[in-house]
């Protein structure tokens, strides 16, 4: 749900048909996007709203709630000195969202990291492999159901 006081915001207005929710907290704008249209939303903010830089992509695991994962995109408009957070929710099955690499090349490593640590797959990513964990690691450490104590052997 988009609160009425945000409808005038140019960013929210441009994403109105794709957004499912928006909020302005701590002076930070968050727009929640339907997971199927995240690439379209990113393309729009890059082309029309001059958010030149994708600062980071990461995930938040809301286990055991469903849809389980929030994929969070932080963007920056350098000339306008604005920041924006886009968010898309991904269910645990199928745990997949379209890759942003076709819009921002910097998404490459951040998506690999999110895949590595959360197990969220990014469809259309050029090289979706583990980046910080060993290649033969089992499990995805930043998931909330991943144990933090105990031994592996």
């Amino acid at each position: 749900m988009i609160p009425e006081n945000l409808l005038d915001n140019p960013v929210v207005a441009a994403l109105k048909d794709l957004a499912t929710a928006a909020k302005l907290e701590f002076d930070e704008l968050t727009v929640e996007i339907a997971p199927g249209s995240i690439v379209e939303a990113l393309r729009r903010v890059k082309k029309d709203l001059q958010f030149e830089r994708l600062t980071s992509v990461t995930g938040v695991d809301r286990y055991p709630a469903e849809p389980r994962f929030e994929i969070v995109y932080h963007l920056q408009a350098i000339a306008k000195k604005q920041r924006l957070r886009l968010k898309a929710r991904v269910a645990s099955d199928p745990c997949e969202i379209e890759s942003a690499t076709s819009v921002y090349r910097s998404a490459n490593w951040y998506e690999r990291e999110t895949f590595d640590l959360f197990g969220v797959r990014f469809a259309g990513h050029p090289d979706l492999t583990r980046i910080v964990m060993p290649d033969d690691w089992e499990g995805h450490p930043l998931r909330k159901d991943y144990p933090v104590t105990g031994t592996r052997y």
Partner: protein
Amino acid sequence: MADVKDTGVLDAAELPAETTPVEMPNDRGVTSERAVELDYNEHLKSKSGPRSMVLNMGPQHPSTHGVLRLLLELDGEEILKAAPDIGYLHTGIEKEFEQKTYQQGVTLTDRIDYLAPLSNNLAYCLAAEKLLGLEIPELAQWTRVMLAEFTRLNSHLVWLGTHAIDIGAMSVFLYCFREREEILRVFEMFSGQRMMTSYFRIGGLALPHPRGWQKRVKDFVDIFPSRVDEYEELLTTNRIWTGRTKGVGYISLEDMLDLGVTGPMLRAAGLKIDVRKDAPYSSYEKFDFEVPTRTENDVFARYQLRIEEMRQSCKIIKQALEGMPSGSHQADAPGIVLPEREKMKTQMEALIYHFKIVSEGFRVPEGEVYSAIESPRGEVGCYMVSDGTQKPYRVHWRGPSFGNLQSIPTLIEGTLIADVIAALGSMDFVLGDTDR
């Protein structure tokens, strides 16, 4: 001897065109189906034919400053393809944040970018303070600015020294570490620690100012500008130095923005971007300083830029020293900052607060924030999600080195291998920051 092959040369035609995914048994001998198969031979496929060879640079190569592994495909001296491989220093800090209370998390941030611990402390504290809605006293804010600039000097000095060693100028390192030692003494004076300071805490500073800090800082700012001249004397007009750095390591501004590069690399390409000016935090708006830029966009420009940044940082420290406001070093927030030692001995409430903060931490209201600061290497971002408990629900660390390293292939492909060392050095990455 005709059938003995030169082992250094790989013939692309002899490699299988399609590599079949290999079932990788793990340590227990259990074969697991991996989510995505790494194509190990992909790097060996040549673009230019049988003349190329693959060189594995790192993870122990001295110029990779830590444990960066670079797979380079070479045609003679020329780099055809580069594939950086990171993760050797992954310590799961983001996971660990979730197991620690907010105040305990400060100690983890020191260890992310171990050359700029106070910058990291600052990003983390600002995020938590934003969630808590804390008002930080001026004295604490100014001290934060001063020590963050000392951190910048510290980091730039290590960078200059090691970068010069990489390129072959040994003595610069000794001069740089002479001044760095003084900075570490300042850190030790303030926090009791030379490197892992954890001096900034949520709500202010860990300790009040030490006695006699003004003299030590003043001695430093008085002497430092002349020391920067000394480094410049050693390098700026040095023909070997300019020969190795001028016109080397070019990468277009568009590429850098698209690849998420931040910090001095962008400023050396002419873009005036600095979080300290664009979105001032911790009262940076009260300080008078310039954001230096260069337009040459090569290794030499990045060197000159950082030299100028050191002069500006020194200027900021001087202003902080002269205008240091008086007041408390911690916010007035019982239940979040630890009570004074003396009060604990006489007041019941202080004792209770102390016990509660130490044993279970404090609750932080629900919400999510992203706090960005300008670290020596670029933009450090701390994305913190709170669920209303005493421990962060999620902390994501946007390290500048991680973003900058992504540009390595674009930066070095097509250049010569000797220039790789100079180009990598000019990027100034820290692997602890990359892998977390």
